[in-house]
């Protein structure tokens, strides 16, 4: 459908390929709780992830980035679309077709790190139980073996193995996030979805966790899908970046290209809105009028057209396809090839 150009030549380098992914939630209302509409949380995401790279997934709150991440892992069942995962043992498989049992075989290879380190660790479990749980479920050893593995994992994320018997409340936000990372690493996954892993942390701690994620990626050849709304963090960590707006992926490109030569007006506005930490570069950003459209009642045509300063008649009538502007640079805009847009100004 809209996936021209999403598959680079060598599929062995690829780890994940998502085609036209959709996730709709029914809205129930009224006395008999019948469906009164749908929220199109994810409504057309096409992306591919190469082995060992970090793909950033950005967008404003409610744009569907978290839902997209969770649907890719099959924590949510997709409404439509294809999720192809290159499993180290089974080879290419279509995740959307697997049942529970089959999924369990694949799950060890794909993990998730959650946003909130306070609610994602069970307060009634010790650190040892939290980190060993995935090992025990997947029968990766027992007794001392598991304990040694937990100690090793704690060391890997920069924490002392003696902490094993403590409960989560004894740790600070940054330390808890390290525990979440240790748990995600337990089964030697190849893909980790990082869902806003640093947004709940203070800046000095954020830097520690970002550095840790980069070290782990290098040491264990991990592949990240990094979901975040902080554009400076995403620029720092990502090799390529995908931008979402109201459930649709609107642009995907190499980080540098996306930040300095964007091909979608929404990306341009997003880049201009970031407050730059330099008092000598004060500029008035491009004013983006209005509010983010509601995924329950999106506008016609291109979802961005009511706020877009380049919008023409066609934009309110036809939904633009994802087109390849240059190799591996995709944009969902009718005028992607004609517009000259401003990136981050340095």
């Amino acid at each position, binding site marked *: 459908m809209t996936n021209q150009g999403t598959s680079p030549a060598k599929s062995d380098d690829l780890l994940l390929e998502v085609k036209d992914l959709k996730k709709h939630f029914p809205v129930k209302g009224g006395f008999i709780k019948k469906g009164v509409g749908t929220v199109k949380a994810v409504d057309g995401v096409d992306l591919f992830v190469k082995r060992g790279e970090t793909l950033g997934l950005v967008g404003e709150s409610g744009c569907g980035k978290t839902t997209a991440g969770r649907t890719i892992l099959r924590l949510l069942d997709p409404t439509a679309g294809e999720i192809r995962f290159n499993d180290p043992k089974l080879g290419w498989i279509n995740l959307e077709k697997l049942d529970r049992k089959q999924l369990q075989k694949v799950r060890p290879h794909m993990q998730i790190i959650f946003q909130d380190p306070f609610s994602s660790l069970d307060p009634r479990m010790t650190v040892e139980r939290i980190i060993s749980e995935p090992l025990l479920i997947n029968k990766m050893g027992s007794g001392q073996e598991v304990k040694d593995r937990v100690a090793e994992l704690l060391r890997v994320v920069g924490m002392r193995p003696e902490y094993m018997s403590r409960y989560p409340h004894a740790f600070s936000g940054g330390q808890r996030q390290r525990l979440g990372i240790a748990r995600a690493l337990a089964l030697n996954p190849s893909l980790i979805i990082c869902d806003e892993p640093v947004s709940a942390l203070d800046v000095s*701690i954020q830097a520690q966790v970002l550095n840790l994620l980069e070290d782990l990626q290098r040491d264990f050849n991990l592949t990240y899908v990094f979901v975040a709304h902080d554009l400076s963090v995403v620029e720092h960590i990502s090799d390529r970046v995908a931008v979402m707006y109201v459930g649709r992926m609107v642009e995907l490109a190499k980080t540098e290209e996306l930040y300095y030569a964007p091909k979608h007006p929404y990306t341009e506005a997003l880049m201009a809105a970031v*407050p730059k930490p330099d008092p000598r570069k004060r500029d008035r950003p491009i*004013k*983006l009028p209005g509010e983010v459209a509601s995924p329950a009642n999106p506008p016609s045509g291109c979802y961005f057209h009511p706020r877009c300063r380049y919008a023409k008649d066609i934009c309110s009538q036809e939904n633009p396809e994802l087109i390849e502007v240059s190799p591996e640079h995709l944009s969902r805009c009718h005028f992607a090839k004609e517009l000259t847009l401003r990136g981050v100004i340095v």
Partner: protein
Amino acid sequence: MSDIIGQEKVEQDVVLRIKDLHTYFYTDIGVSRALNGVSFEIPLGKVMGVVGESGCGKSVTALTIMRLLVRSAKIMKGEVSFFRHTKKNDLSTMIEAVDLLKLEAMGPEMRAIRGAELAMIFQEPMTSLNPSYTIGDQISEAIILHQEVDHHEGIQRAITVLDQVGMANPKMIVNRYPHELSGGMRQRAMIAMGLSCHPAVLFADEPTTALDVTTEAQILDLMRDLQTQFGTTIVFITHNLGVVAQMCDFVSVMYLGRIVEQAPVEELFYNSKHPYTSALLNSIPHVGSRTKTRLQSIRGVVPDPYSTIKGCPFHPRCDSFMPGKCDQGMPAQSHVNPTHTVRCFLFSDEVEE
């Protein structure tokens, strides 16, 4: 215009002078020393940024000045001088100094100042608006109280102020409840509430932290416009250094209940002195840096405020730690130049107390 009030010489360009503020919280698990001697001056008509990590006392400073602390908090000592015209907004009247800490927190004088002359907008527009009153009722409450108008006129003025903060369709919005508005609209309503009585000083406690970048840009733009239009002094509390760089004229950096460095914004970003400030600046990824260098992180964590650290509170995490010096005494505030102060033994040997 005279500027001699009582025995004290009043500088016309300062609106608030805070001296040696100590605020402690008495809780079941001990005493949390939230503020340990905060001193600074807020220049009139400027935007003053207060930055620091969570728990450093940024919000407590504002709440202490506003006298909005919870009951478990005690102001141990300090002085907050508020310089105001004897008749509000009448520039021809004399300037008088009021020590806010000498007033009863819930007494008539403080209540007359709070909301009218000193106002505050809070971080979470979701939780700080009352869900059971309409936006119009909540904004007009302060207007009716301070401007002595009836309900109808109050609502009319609420509509005007909503219009000023760029809310689309303010006539409809006054009848809406908070849950019917988006995050950005709620924050606009909060700002409208804060500005409704044209305060001299507006404390903005992380006003954009809960918002998306495009909405944040709209709100920052709005605050900048309102500041030029009304000349309101803004105290901008945030941990986002990008926002500070774009908005503020002066910056105070806080660490564990003390101001460790104070400077005009350019000076702070280009010539920071305190190791904590430099570390903070180096630990944030910059948009547009293009280079993929490793971020410099600050080792360790912010110590909990229940513990007392001997010497400079930053010494356990500091790269320039000097044994025998930094862990012994508290460095005094010293001047780098007339507008730039720092609290660090690298620049002065003076010890406090």
